[in-house]
């Protein structure tokens, strides 16, 4: 039912680039020309036939580290976003449907969490807890879920008063059916558009944490950490720090192109038939 010729150009570009990033992430050990921590040349060598993107501040191959970095960055961002959406959407929908004290309690709790700047909150928590990938994901996921919570609650409150939800309640449906079968499919459009955005925020947040030294720990590579490692080179006209930054930007744009396209499709009320 999906006709490749009918995908708009922007979405197609987005799909291609997202796919490239994903392939790089999944098959990193097979694609990367050198090892992750292998020192293969001089410090900050320019691009050449053997090192396509040059080398970094320790003489490691930048392309290999970019590929391994894609793996860490995308993996953490995907899992953290998934966590934040599951948590935020389920709690947000439940608050909207249940109302009453649950709604009040959850909403005030979220307000409380949101009143503390995310980065500072993250810094405090991460400097207390041991910095492992699991804590990173949990901290990022939970902090981000507050935004998702507010959005899903706002969307669900509107849907909850529609006649078809009332019909389901009159039928005696349980809360799970109402949330997942009546509300969720109708709340998908704003959530998907938020998903693209939130994923990128997760990448940026992770990069910021790594840049500050609290994210992914060396020698593991991630794009934010690589910017940090190579930032001193900028003074000498070495572009090594700009390449991971550019990769973050490219990922951000391509993911959102795909999200927008999915959004167009999910808003269609005719099951994707007809005017796609």
């Amino acid at each position, binding site marked *: 039912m999906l006709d490749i010729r009918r995908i708009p150009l922007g979405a197609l570009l987005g799909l291609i680039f997202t796919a490239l990033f994903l392939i790089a992430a999944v098959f990193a050990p097979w694609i990367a020309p050198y090892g992750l921590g292998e020192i293969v040349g001089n410090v900050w060598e320019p691009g050449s036939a053997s090192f396509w993107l040059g080398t970094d501040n320790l003489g490691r191959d930048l392309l290999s580290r970019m590929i391994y970095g894609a793996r860490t960055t995308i993996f953490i961002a995907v899992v953290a976003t998934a966590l934040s959406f599951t948590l935020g959407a389920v709690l947000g929908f439940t608050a909207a449907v249940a109302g009453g004290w649950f709604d009040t309690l959850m909403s005030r709790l979220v307000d409380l969490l949101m009143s503390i700047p995310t980065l500072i909150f993250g810094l405090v928590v991460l400097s207390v807890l041991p910095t492992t990938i699991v804590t990173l994901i949990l901290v990022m996921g939970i902090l981000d879920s507050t935004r998702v919570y507010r959005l899903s609650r706002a969307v669900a409150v509107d849907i909850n008063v*529609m006649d*078809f939800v009332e*019909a389901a309640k*009159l*039928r005696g449906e349980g809360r799970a059916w109402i949330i997942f079968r009546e509300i969720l*499919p*109708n709340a998908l459009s704003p959530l998907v558009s938020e998903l693209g955005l939130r994923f990128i925020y997760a990448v940026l947040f992770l990069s910021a944490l790594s840049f500050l030294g609290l994210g992914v720990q060396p020698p593991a590579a991630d794009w934010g950490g690589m910017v940090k490692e190579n930032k001193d080179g900028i003074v000498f006209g070495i572009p090594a720090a700009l390449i991971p930054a550019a990769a973050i930007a490219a990922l951000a744009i391509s993911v959102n192109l795909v999200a927008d396209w999915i959004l167009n499709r999910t808003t269609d009320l005719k099951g994707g038939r007809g*005017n796609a």
Partner: protein
Amino acid sequence: MPDAAAGRDRPESLLEMRKLRIEATVYPPGEDPKNITLVHDVSLTLKRGRVLGLIGESGAGKSTIGLASMGYGRGGVRITGGEVVLNGRDILRAGSSTTRKLRGREVCYVAQSAAAAFNPAHRLMDQVVEAALLHGVAGRAEAERRAVALFRKLSLPDPENIGRRFPHQVSGGQLQRVMTAMALCPEPDLIVFDEPTTALDVTTQIDVLAAIKEAIRDTRVAALYITHDLAVVAQVSDEIMVLRHGRLVEWGGTRQIIKEPRQEYTNALVSVHEISHDEQQPGGTPFLSVKNVTASYGGGLVKVLKDVSVDIFPGQTLAVVGESGSGKSTLARAITGLLPPEKGSVTFGGRKLGNRLSDRSKDDLRQLQMIYQMADVAMNPRQPVATIIGRPLEFYFGLKGAERDRRVAELLEKIEMGKGFADRYPAELSGGQKQRVCIARALAAQPRLIICDEVTSALDPLVANGILKLLLDLQKEEGVAYLFITHDLATVKSIADSIAVMYRGEVVRYGQKSKVLSPPFDAYTDLLLSSVPEMEIGWLEKAIGGRRMASAGN
């Protein structure tokens, strides 16, 4: 009335459409986009000061033709052929500066839903005089004076000051009249009325209708009056044009169309309400009794039901009639448990039902099903028909897989729709089909009572008729009882066994249909009965003259 158009050259006919063709692009499911023709070479002539009624079901092209009179195509609709000659010039070829000058100056438009057509952020007066100011017809002071005079003519309350209110501060019927004032303010040559009374209660409709008729007569403006209600159009127009699928069916004088229709389709429209249903005697004991129910919103602040008692007998229909705000729908909410009553009780099969939804057993819930007014929003737009109808089967009876599909097919058959509809989404159904699917969903639960909340009021008369017939047939087959909430007395006459008339939260008249509908009447029932438009010229004047009380929604 000063003649604003004196300087213009004035041909005898004001508006002439010749072989008007209007097309649009549609996107049918599973096919490539294609062009369809909405209006097929329709021609009409309208003389100055005359009123032409355009009538037909939805999709007949009435509104499209109405809007074409000002050179406008709504929502991607294209005028592809023919000419529209207004005041002696073809406006389709005249370019945008001419159309901009004539809209709001020579032709004005009165929309169906005044509530949606007014900008809620501006005061009424600013919106009423806007067109007159924009076209330089009058200065602000002069325009406002005209507006106040029009408010008075349209019998709006407090004409001096009503313009200072915002749209949400006046009732629906008043807003519709303000919109008529807005159309009349720049003293146009032609007004297009697009179903101006369809969204109103019968008791309010009659006032608005009388006001519009009087205003047309006094200002000698010409009008295109678009509606699907032949009885309404018969009151205001000189001529009637019947349309169907964008083609002209019949065009003639009002008297000829309603008394001696020449075409079969016109005949069907004229005789639409005649459904025969023999009243059943309330045999045995009622299975559902509402006893002295009082209910309110906002924690006791607004009492909407006062001491209401009604009984429903197995396999029979109780119609609850009244205007908006009389508490009809609240009664349904109290019975279903959505709004727990403050006092009184609902008894079902000798047992008292829990006041709240959560206090009722699954089987109690199954026995009471509901069909809503707006079928659009009563179905989850993301679920295909098979899921919508299949869910109650799965939920109440545990039917799964092939067995469920078989039963869904059976139910689709019952509502006179084929198997092919099972995987359609609600957006792919017509209004009548949507309502049928809602009926099937209610039937799937095999209930003893179905509450029908204004189920036909959003539908065209012919489609509504089909739904009513279906409901009656199903009642015979399944022995289900209906609680039928409506403001349309014609519907009541055709399907009810007993009737409860509600007014401001109270049941003012209750009993068997034949008793309720025979004199002597109380004042309110009389008002309700006399407000139902009859297909008879001169009915409006007679009805207004004979009224004993003013309507509450006015």
